[in-house]
């Protein structure tokens, strides 16, 4: 059974039909990319999946459970963790603390355990701290662990955001245009990190504008245009798909990778 | 059970007070539209209006018209100082919204305390603009001051409308409220507009204070109730819309007057504040907002 299954997802804002009956599945361990020209409804689709707002109609199942219209933190708790197109770091905290917060989903404890610090809590704090350092090493930010997050250059902020999402040990990671605003080198570093995440067994959905990135790392691609799914398939099929070419010829993007 | 006369009387009183709330509410809107800030010190302008006017009348012996002509610019100036000395530097430094709100609240308390030390805590009042009255219809007494309030209020609303639609500065102010970045690109000096907004808003508060003082009194601490009620008026009207604030003020004034008849005056402020919470929680877009507008606060 598919890990994520989107069925006829439709989102309407007043008169605007942002998503129209979009259906697709994501299998466990897959790396899927969602592409499409500006305004195709990609981010709306992410918002609908991650619970930012409910779909007007249609359903979303995750891991066999119906998560249609669930709250964002409920969706996250189920194991579906997302990042945002605009970096959303906890700027006043250190790089390491940012990642430690990421472990919220996979840890437990509230006011009383914080106050009385039982043994399990101390163990957990240790493993949170150690785990955060490991993830920072994974994305290559260990040297900046104690710096305030807002002092990182933009490209590294992106990597930090990914590390933080990984701390939540997602079953499905949703990356919303992670390469936006990055230069070529930074994009390459990011692509390499995403590939390693995928190799580590995490399922990933990627919204991306950067075609070279998508063609390089995605296993399967879903193409949206004007809120509808117009194509789905392997990168090679998508490159030569007539509807996709037509959609992109209308815009400024180039499918050459 | 209150009689019909009492009922009508409280509606009449409520309209007068409601118009005052409406003016304060418009003051909130003017600043909010120009800067995105809710000035928590709005009520202090009402207090200053009444207080300065009373001092000019009683201690300098000025005639009423001259006292009014001096009071309004003075209070407007205090608004400009507030903008220039507090709000502007904070915005320049990228202060948080809460910090700016807090600073305006601090400014209110500072002005109140200075007033307390300078003029004492004795409630002050001055006589109505025209002597005689009250005018009686049936058993309902209508003080002449109420006519002044209604007349000046209506005139003011008309002048504001002219200002915002017919003058260059007024139109520039409206451009700021719609999109300050675009306004800047169109060559509207946004920072000067904020100064204008604070001056205008303070002047409105001062006029409200001058108009209302003969019907009750002024003291260093009357600002907060006027501020809160003006804020409620603005919220009822869907924050930012001057016409809505005016309607909201009238509605609030009448409801309050009726509540006093029904419940007694003791808990009138508690009732007003509770009304504020209810409106905030249930109608964050104002009572008159269409059902289609889905935008919540901010």
């Amino acid at each position, binding site marked *: 059974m598919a890990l994520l299954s989107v069925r006829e997802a439709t989102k309407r804002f007043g008169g605007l039909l942002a998503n129209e009956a979009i259906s697709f599945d994501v299998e466990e361990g897959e790396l899927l990319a969602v592409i499409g020209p500006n305004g195709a409804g990609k981010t709306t689709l992410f918002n609908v999946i*991650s619970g930012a707002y409910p779909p007007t109609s249609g359903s979303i199942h995750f891991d066999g459970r119906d998560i249609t219209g669930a709250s964002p*933190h409920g969706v*996250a708790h189920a194991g579906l*963790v997302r990042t*945002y197109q605009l970096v959303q*770091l*906890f700027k*006043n905290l250190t790089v390491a*603390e940012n990642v*430690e*917060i990421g*472990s*919220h989903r996979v*840890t*437990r*404890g*509230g*006011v009383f355990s*914080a*106050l009385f*610090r039982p043994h399990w809590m101390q163990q957990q*704090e240790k493993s*949170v*701290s150690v785990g955060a350092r490991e993830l920072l090493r994974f994305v290559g930010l260990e040297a900046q662990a*104690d710096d*305030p997050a807002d002092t990182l250059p933009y490209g590294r902020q992106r990597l930090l955001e990914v590390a933080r999402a990984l701390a939540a040990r997602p079953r499905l990671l949703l990356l919303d245009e992670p390469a936006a605003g990055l230069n070529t080198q930074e994009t390459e570093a990011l692509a390499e990190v995403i590939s390693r995440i995928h190799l580590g067994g995490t399922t990933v959905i990627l919204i991306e504008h950067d075609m070279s990135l998508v063609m390089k790392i995605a296993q399967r691609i879903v193409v949206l245009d004007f809120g509808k799914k117009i194509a789905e398939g392997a990168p090679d099929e998508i490159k030569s798909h007539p509807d996709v070419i037509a959609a992109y010829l209308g815009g400024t993007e180039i499918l050459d990778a | 059970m209150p009689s019909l006369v009492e009922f009508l009387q409280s509606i009449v009183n409520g309209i007068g007070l409601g118009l005052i709330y409406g003016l304060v509410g418009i003051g909130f809107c003017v600043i909010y539209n120009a800067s995105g800030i*809710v000035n928590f010190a709005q009520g202090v302008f009402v207090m200053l209006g009444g207080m300065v006017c009373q001092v000019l009348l009683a201690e300098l012996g000025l005639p009423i018209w001259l006292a009014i002509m001096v009071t309004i610019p003075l209070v407007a100036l205090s608004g400009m100082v507030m903008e220039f000395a*507090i709000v502007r*530097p*904070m915005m320049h*430094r990228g*202060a948080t919204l809460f910090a700016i*709100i*807090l*600073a305006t*609240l*601090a*400014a209110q*308390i*500072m002005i109140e*305390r*200075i007033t*307390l*030390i300078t003029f004492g805590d004795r409630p002050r009042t001055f006589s109505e603009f025209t002597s005689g009255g009250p005018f009686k219809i049936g058993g309902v007494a209508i003080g002449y001051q109420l006519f002044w309030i209604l007349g000046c209020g209506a005139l003011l609303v008309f002048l504001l409308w002219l200002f915002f639609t017919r003058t260059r500065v007024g139109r520039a102010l409206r451009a700021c409220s719609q999109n300050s970045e675009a306004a800047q690109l169109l060559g509207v000096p946004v920072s000067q507009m904020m100064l204008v907004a604070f001056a205008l808003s303070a002047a409105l508060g001062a006029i409200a204070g001058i108009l209302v003082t003969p019907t009750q009194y002024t003291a260093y601490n009357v600002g*907060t109730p006027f501020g*809160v009620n003006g*804020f409620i008026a603005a919220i009822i009207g869907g*924050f930012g819309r001057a016409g809505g604030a005016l309607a909201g003020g009238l509605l609030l004034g009448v409801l309050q007057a009726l509540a006093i008849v029904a419940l007694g005056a*003791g808990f009138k*402020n*508690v009732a007003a*504040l*509770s009304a*504020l*919470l209810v409106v*905030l*929680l249930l109608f*964050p877009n104002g009572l008159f907002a269409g059902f289609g507008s889905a935008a919540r*606060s*901010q």
Partner: protein
Amino acid sequence: MTSHAITSTEPTSVGWRSALPIAAVAVVAAYGLMSSDYVVTVLGFAFIYAIFCTGLNFFMGYTGQASFGQSAFAAIGGYGSAILCTDYGWEPLLALIATMAISGVVAAVVGYPTLRLRGHYLAMATFALGLIAYEITIEWTSLTQGYMGYAGIPPLGLGGFELATLKQQFIAIVVMALIGVGVASRLRQSRFGRALASIAGSELAARALGVDIARYKLVAFVIAALYASAAGSLFAHFVGFISPEIYGTSMVIQSFAMLYLGGIGTTWGPMLGAVIVSVLPEALRGLKEMQDIAYTAILIFILIFAPRGLAGLTVLFRRARRPALGKA
């Protein structure tokens, strides 16, 4: 950049970092104990405010929200303790704890709908809460004795043992303030505290990581109310008399001046600010009426020129050793 800055483990650094402020508090307290009752009174107020501000810091500093009406919970604590101890002969400590529980429940009930609001609306709604409490203390005279105030409140005590002298009470207050800071610091450095910090940082990111924002905001609000209530009760016992003015808007302004001066969001900042702001007008020998003007002036000045407060200076200091960073 050397590596030992990174490898130094957290517990030891927390150890020496908190030893210094505790020593400073001990010095201030010892100075108070060797001075006149007047000095003890001023410092006692300072540490009561430190408790209030430490609570406020939970909601505003750690969680990044705003409450302009925490004075309401101080009023519940103060009047609750006064009534329970004076009219019903309760143990002061028991009354303090009971009123904290009441404040917590009120905060939960009131906060549940109110905390959905944002920005100006949240600020105004909480401000209204404080004003409502103030009006009630004035108008409900059968309960609160209105403007007359409530006199004859017994001093703090425990199990029949009364802290008879001012200095004994002062010691109790300092100890409670330290406990309050200790609790705050423990809570901040935990999964719970990190969740609060995530809300302050970015609500979007917090919820994407599974943080239930509404719940954590409410818990932070309740904790702030518990501190405020305890401070209100302590004030009543320490002075033996309360009136509506004590829990009015000047309490709000004073506590904000302290919080911002000391450093919002830091562990020791609220206490630091509380002591400085309490002592400053006394040092200036100002008139009683001038105090509020001094507080508002300090607050506005800090808000404009040093929004991170004094504790923020230590951050600058630490950063100064790194290659220059453009922004603070």
